[in-house]
Every structure is written in C-alpha cells, then in structure tokens.
C-alpha cells in the first residue's frame, strides 16, 4: 500500500497535491519521470509525472487536476489512506545539462511537472526564465516554488487577473526577441505546447515538451500511448515522455487523448450521482 502522508488542495480545490510513501520509487526517480497510480481494486491506471521526490523521506509527490472519475476518486483519499498501486519511476528522465539560457514554460498542472525540471536545470548552471500561465489568478499554482527554482519569473493569465494578460506565448515571444535563448521546455495542455513549439520553431530554438497520452501499462507493452514524432510512431511511455516539440504531431495527439471522452463522461456522471459532494 502507498500511504498518503500529506495532502493539499490548490486552485480552489480543483488541483490536489498528494505526497505518497513509495521509498523504492523515491530513491530512483529523476525529474521528468512519471508514475502510474491506481486507487483501488476497480480503479483505472492513471499516469502522472512526479512533481517532487524525497529520497530521504521515501516519498513522491503528485499534483493533479480533477477532470474525471479517477481523479475525483483520488481526491477522496485523505492523509493516512493509501493508493492500492503506484508503479514507477517510468519513462526517460529529462536530459539535464548546461546549455546556457533556458526558458521553462508551464501551464495549468504542467507547472507542477515543470518545477523539478526547472530546479535541476538551474542547479546545472543554466540561466532559467520561468513563464507560468493560468486561466486566472485563483488557478495559478506553485508560484513561490517556481520563483525559487528560476532566476526570473513571468506570469500570464487569460483574464488579466494576475501578471500579464494574455497567453504564455505572448511573454515567451518577448523573451525570444532578445535572441539569447538556447532552449525552451514547455509542459502544459496540448494546445499550449503546440503553440509554444510553433513560436519557437519560427525562432529556431530547440524545444522540449512532455506528453501525457492515454496509457495502460507504461512499460511499452500496449502501444496505447503512440504518438507521431517526425513522422515516426513512438511510445510516449518508454521513448518519452519528453520529445522534440518541433517534431510532435499535436493534432493527432489532441484527437487521441479524446478516444474515451464519451465513456469518461458517462463514468464521471455516474460517480457524481452517487457522490454529489464531488460534482463540480
């Protein structure tokens, strides 16, 4: 059993942090890797990239948004309760090396995934600018941690309630215009990664993105997570989750992550009927 030792609610309760006892995973995990979690016997296997690991304490931290039945079920788990299964660390870690000036662009819960990567890139001697995007101020997460993990922090909100009004790409464009950026890392919703990659390809700046398609096993066995990278099929679970952002077929990915949307909706609605507290 994988017991929850700390739990926080963020972004008005739509985003949840769980720190989970998983010593074996914590001792090996590196930034950019993910775990698969399953709440109970009937549960689905859900892949989530780790937001933090603490090898001394033997814990890992995940931060997720409640979007369907499985994440709503995760949300019900309190401190002292446990996930039945946590599998990992999976996927290839982020390549952390000194390249110079790096911009880390995070959107939504992608900021959580971005945090350990940003810190590692800074620790490796890079000058790191972080750009965070959210729909509004209330939905922005990890601002302080990201400020500490970077040299410079820029914030954009869609509605202008905090930071600059607009999208992360607006802030990124200004940084790129300075002409001294060697690399961009972008993690967030697929459309965000698509538009960041589109912009950076105009500036010919190398861009890394982290993909989170539908998966079952996470070990290269099912092929459910196939993505097209530079015209070739890759498995995000073992070949990724990070890829060259300029090579990703985002339109295909956006369709594929919708594969079960009708089933998921039905399942979530059934669950909300049973547990009205979690219907939002």
């Amino acid at each position: 059993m994988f017991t929850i030792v700390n739990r926080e609610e963020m972004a008005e309760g739509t985003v949840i942090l769980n720190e989970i006892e998983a010593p074996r995973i914590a001792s090996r995990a590196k930034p950019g890797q993910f775990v698969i979690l399953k709440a109970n016997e009937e549960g689905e296997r859900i892949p989530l990239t780790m937001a933090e690991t603490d090898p001394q304490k033997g814990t890992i931290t995940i931060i997720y948004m409640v979007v369907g039945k499985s994440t709503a079920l995760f949300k019900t788990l309190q401190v002292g309760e446990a996930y039945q299964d946590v599998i990992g660390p999976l996927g290839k870690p982020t390549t952390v090396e000194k390249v110079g000036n790096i911009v880390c662009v995070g959107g939504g819960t992608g900021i959580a995934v971005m945090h350990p990567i940003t810190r590692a890139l800074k620790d490796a001697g890079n000058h790191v600018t972080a750009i965070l995007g959210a729909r509004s101020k209330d939905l922005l997460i990890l601002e302080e941690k990201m400020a500490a993990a970077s040299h410079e922090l820029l914030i954009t909100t869609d509605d202008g309630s905090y930071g600059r009004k607009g999208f992360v790409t607006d802030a990124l464009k200004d940084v790129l215009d300075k002409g001294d950026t060697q690399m961009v890392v972008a993690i967030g919703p697929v459309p965000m990664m698509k538009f960041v990659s589109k912009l950076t390809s105009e500036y010919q700046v190398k861009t890394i993105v982290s993909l989170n398609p539908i998966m079952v096993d996470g070990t290269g066995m099912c092929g459910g997570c196939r993505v097209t990278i530079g015209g070739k099929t890759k498995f995000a679970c073992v070949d990724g989750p990070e890829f060259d952002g300029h090579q990703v077929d985002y339109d295909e990915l956006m369709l594929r992550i919708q594969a079960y949307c009708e089933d998921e909706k039905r399942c979530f609605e059934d669950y909300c009927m049973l547990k009205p507290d979690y219907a939002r």
Partner: protein
Amino acid sequence: MAGQAAKKEKTPRLKMPEQEPHVRARNFHEVPLGLTAEMAIEEAGRCLQCKKPACVPGCPVGIDIPGFINLIREGEFTQSIRKLWEKNSLPAVCGRVCPQEIQCEGLCIVGKKGEPVAIGNLERFAADQERAHGTGELPPRAKPNGKKVAVVGSGPSGLTVAGDLIVKGYDVTILEAFHKPGGVLVYGIPEFRLPKAIVAQEINFLERLGVKVECNAVVGRTVSVDELFEEEGYDAVYIGVGAGLPRFMNIPGENLIGILSANEYLTRANLMKAYLFPEVDTPIPIGKNVVVLGAGNVAMDAARTAMRLGADKVRIVYRRSRDEMPARTAEIHHAEEEGIEFFLLTNPTRYFGNEQGRLTGMECLKMELGEPDDSGRRRPVPMEGSEFSLDCDLCVVAVGSGANPLLTQSTKDMQLNKWGYIDADLETGKTRKKGVWAGGDIVTGAATVILAMGAGRKAADSIDQYLSWGW
C-alpha cells in the same frame, strides 16, 4: 484380452460439454464446462497404457501421461494430481491452453485410427477436482538453504521456476511489473478460456509454499538486475518477462482512434476487467464492426472478446490460408461456432478515418500463396489490382510481438540476439551474464505457455546446480 483391446478402440472420445455457441458468444464465462468424474474415468479407460508411450516425448515438461491417466481410471484423483505436479506446477492452466493436438495428443497411438485420448481434458479434470475437493495439502519442501532467487515476471515460466525452487529450499521472490501477478495468464488469455480465479489459486498455492510475490516492481526501472544482486542480496536472477512489444502493421492511418494492439485490447479486457465498465473504471472500445488482424491464439482471443462485448460483425483478416493459421484447432473451431468470419489470403494496406480521427475502414489486398519462406510456410504474394475496402470501427492488431527492450537495455552485459531477445542457452537458460538465467518468450520470441514452462523447468534445474556447485 484381444476382445478388450478392440472394445477400447471403439469407445469414442468423450466430448467435453460446452456452453452453446449462441449463448457463450455474449458472455465471459468459461466455454468448456469440464468432465464429471464418471466421464473422466470413462475417457481414462481409452488410454492403452503403452509400455513405451508416444505421448510423453511430445510434452515439453515430460509429464508421466499414462501414469496420471491410470490413476484417474482407478478413481485415485488425489494421486493423479500428485503425479501431474511432479512435472507440471500449473496443470489447471495447461489442461486448458496447451496445443495438445501438436504435442501429446498428436502422438497418441489411439489417435492413429480414431481420435486420441483427451489428455488435455483429463489433465484439466484432475486439477479441477483437486481445486474443488482436494485436501489442499502441500507437497514436501526441503529445508530452507538461505539462498535468495529473484524471478522477474510472473507468467508461466516465472511461476514454474518459483514453484520448482521453493520446494528445493530456496528463498524465492517474484517481481511483477503489473499490479497483479500471472503475466499473460492474467492480462492476455481471456476469462472465457482461462478463468482468472484459477490463475489466482495457482499463485496462492505458490505463496502458501513460501514464494513471495512483489507487484508493481518494474525491473529495469523500479530496480535494476544489478541492484538485485548488489543491494538486495539475491544469489541468482531468472528473467521471464515475456516478449511484450506489440507489432503493428506500419501502414498509413495506424494511429487512428479505434486501432489497438492486441496487448492493449486484451489487457483492458482481462487485467483491467473493462468488460464490466462502468462497474470498473477502465473503458474499452466497443466495436460494432470489428476486424482482427492475424490468426494466432491471440487473434482468436481478441475476436471472441469483441463478439462478447456486443459486436455485430467480427472478422479475422489473415494474409495466409487456413492451413497456416497458427492458432490451436480448438480456438479456431470455437471462434467459427461463435460467428466469427474469416477473410483469408487478405492483407490490409491502409486504414481510413473520419475528421474526429476515428477509424472507419481499411483497404485490403487479396493474396495468393507463392514459394515457401524462412518459416517454411508458403509466402503470401499480393494479387495486383485486387484492392477492396472493408468497413470497420475497431481494429485489433494481433500480428505478433517483439522483444520489449525495457529490462534488457537497462542491464549491463546482457547479450541479445539480432531481434533483441536474450541470448540464453536453450538447455539450461543460462545467459552470458553471471548469475542470470532467462527463458520463455524473451528468449524464444512469442510461443506457448507450455514451452515457457519447459524453459522454466530447465532453468530451475540449472539454477539449483549453480547455487549448489557454482557457475
């Protein structure tokens, strides 16, 4: 005497009762219903008890076939299962999934003139009888010798190694990547062919013997093979992780929604029990018009699963002819009875989809058989201008699997062959890496449950020798 022998030959092979095709095609309950004790004794009486049995050499684990059958004939069911256990730790599984027609039953003397003795059905009977009425008494176990063996993968070969070594006194731990043990017996083979309760009971049997089972342990990621030796104190490691890399057709449109590898489709259905969705949380695509590519056992399993999930039409599309289909005869027969159609000598060339990226059909070519290829089977050759299209909303790709590199690439000094399978001695399972054995599909490429078990048996013997006498 002569009269009795003649009478034996005339007794027809007992057909195991089965669910009616139209009923079973829509449920997930096991298809064959098993033999009653009376039926089993009668069928056992058909065995000639040959002095030099032809059947035994056909068994990859060398079961004393006339021996266990004779004990059934005498009504000594407990003794019969003990006889089976001497050579086979998973008789309830093997009785159900072995390709007996090309092994023991294919060599049975009775089968020369009529139908062979139903060896598989009798093996299944003995195991089921033990499960239902047995004493649960464990076989004797040697005194613990303090030596630790890690078994990576809990499929048929890993379970065999664990079962063999635990009774020899070793401290055995199975490491399984999934959240549930059983490997292909759990994620691959469907409930209607191998009920999961049976697999769970076989594993429980090993646990009662003292085998430790650690799930969620992805060797190569959660822990490496070298760390098993250096940090966790194991004296030997057996790798039986299966093939585990799905092959696709590599034709245009393959990433449309509605095209799944058989691994994914069956894992959703079997391991995740998605056929119960929304009672369980994992969904599975429900096709009305389903195409399964390939004609092995996995393809039959996928096709029959699709039918049970409510398809109107399920078609097997296979590029060779009926004679080359690799599936067990019984599976092909069951599939046909359940209304699955066969499009033989047919090969898809591309998929069609709609604006939502969902599969709507495929283009196929007709094939004809040419000269034999490397596999000895006649090579299918496309017939020019024979293109036609097939409508479908779900396609399951069951054209085989390759070697999953996750463990092998993260293990230093592991020698692989050109296809990525582990280079291991086929007689002992020894790899080129000290203290490491391997067997089953990760050595041979995708094969059968019983061949993997045979490899496990040989490796267990070799590990025992090594840990007793040295490498």
